[in-house]
């Protein structure tokens, strides 16, 4: 609860998350109604595209990053409010954790629903990998205050996501199980590192100062 409250303190992303959840629920419902019909094949190939739904899950972190960007010392708005709060640093750490949890939950939901449709789990494992890579990038750029650099990284993350999903979205794509496993482990490790990095440095948010 504390984590959610802190997340809310920085980013009022409730409506955004609810809309995404509703959208996803509608897509999933479509799948169940179409099952055992001729159109199901088409739906399935479409659902691969739903992997881009993984990306919206990353959006909670993107939203948080956007808040930070808009309220950095460079922008000159809001940062004085956040920094003057009691326990500002703790709140910020919890907010980042909250963003990560919401994003991970989103990934898990997509994977769970997808597993109801797909024979092979490969694509789902792949979505998890993609999601983690993106989350890691988002965590690592949290403290980048340069507008251009941060926006470029944000755009790259979103664009890259679409590209990768499209490229690997081919049904023929196969990979040995071991490779998939190693990739998963590696991604999880990178992700863990990014989370530790962002949490360890929460003081940067409250202490980093603009040079005058």
């Amino acid at each position, binding site marked *: 609860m504390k984590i959610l*409250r802190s997340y809310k303190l920085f980013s009022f992303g409730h409506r955004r998350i609810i809309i995404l959840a509703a959208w996803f629920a509608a897509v999933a419902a479509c799948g169940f109604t179409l099952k055992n019909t001729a159109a199901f094949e088409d739906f399935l190939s479409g659902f691969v595209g739903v992997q881009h739904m993984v990306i919206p899950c990353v959006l909670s972190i993107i939203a948080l990053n956007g808040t930070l960007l808009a309220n950095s010392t460079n922008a000159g708005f809001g940062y004085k409010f956040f920094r003057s709060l009691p326990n500002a640093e703790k709140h910020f750490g919890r907010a980042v954790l909250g963003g990560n949890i919401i994003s991970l939950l989103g990934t898990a939901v997509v994977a769970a629903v997808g597993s109801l449709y797909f024979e092979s789990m490969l694509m789902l494992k792949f979505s998890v990998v993609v999601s983690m890579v993106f989350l890691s990038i988002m965590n690592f750029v949290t403290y980048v205050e340069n507008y251009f650099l941060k926006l470029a990284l944000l755009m790259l993350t979103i664009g890259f996501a679409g590209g990768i999903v499209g490229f690997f979205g081919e049904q023929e794509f196969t990979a040995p199980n071991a490779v998939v496993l190693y990739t998963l482990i590696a991604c999880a490790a990178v992700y863990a590192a990014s989370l530790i990095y962002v949490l360890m440095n929460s003081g940067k948010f409250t202490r980093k100062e603009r040079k005058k």
Partner: protein
Amino acid sequence: MESIISASGLVKSYSKFTLGQLSFSIPKGFSTALIGANGAGKTTLIDILCGVIHASEGKINYFGESSDPDSPAVRERVGYCAAAGFFPTNWKPKNIASSFEIAYKNFDREKFARLCGELGVESHLAKKQLPMYKLSDGNRMRTALAAVFARETDVLILDEPGSSLDPLMRDRLCDKFREYLDRGDGEKSVIFSTHNIADMENATDYAVFMGNGKIIETGFVDDLKEKYIIVRGDPEKFPAARELLLSYSSNSTTFEGLAYAENSEKLRLLGAVTEHPTLQTLSVGLLKYAEGKR
């Protein structure tokens, strides 16, 4: 006199500007004005006091208890409001209310709504609320002040609260200060910065004059008014009077300046007339003096 916040040897250095060294003691139970020209360091000082930035050197003491600007206990007791863009620009009053509620133990939603009403801005209860970026500077400040006043605090530290308000609102703000001080009965204090003291004069008890990163003068307003005099005289006597004047201006008809009251006899012998300054004329004289020393 008990102090609410005091500092010793406070320094904040930037490449182009240095604040300090500052040592001061703000009296408890009064309203204190930080008076200075733009760029004098008022905002930097307030930001340091409120933990937005951190001093390079020196110590601050809060309430005679803590010396840590990051202490949650201190921050709960300080009601801080920055000059511009205090809140994220996309926030609406309801976001402000939620955030204050999450961040502070003693935020009162109903009081916030009531104060918004008193100050003439929309509260979190309004049906259609505008985000901060759609409000005028004055309305943004009013919303922020309503939020700060809706907390239970022991000291208000406000950066230029009156600057963006119209004269009517500034008068109401002065009333709010006095109400706050009265409610505290000597336990609550107000600190605010301003570069235009005229409208806030009768809500000011103690003044800290700042210029070019330094403190020029501090004291209770009544004492300061006794300490200094405004001098006016004939231009031909100006060269003789000049060395007694802290700051001055002259033309072919007259000269005018600020001097220590102890020199009033000497100045009167030069045919000048003297009177005690208002806070406004004193500010102008002292700030000009600081400008001249630069």
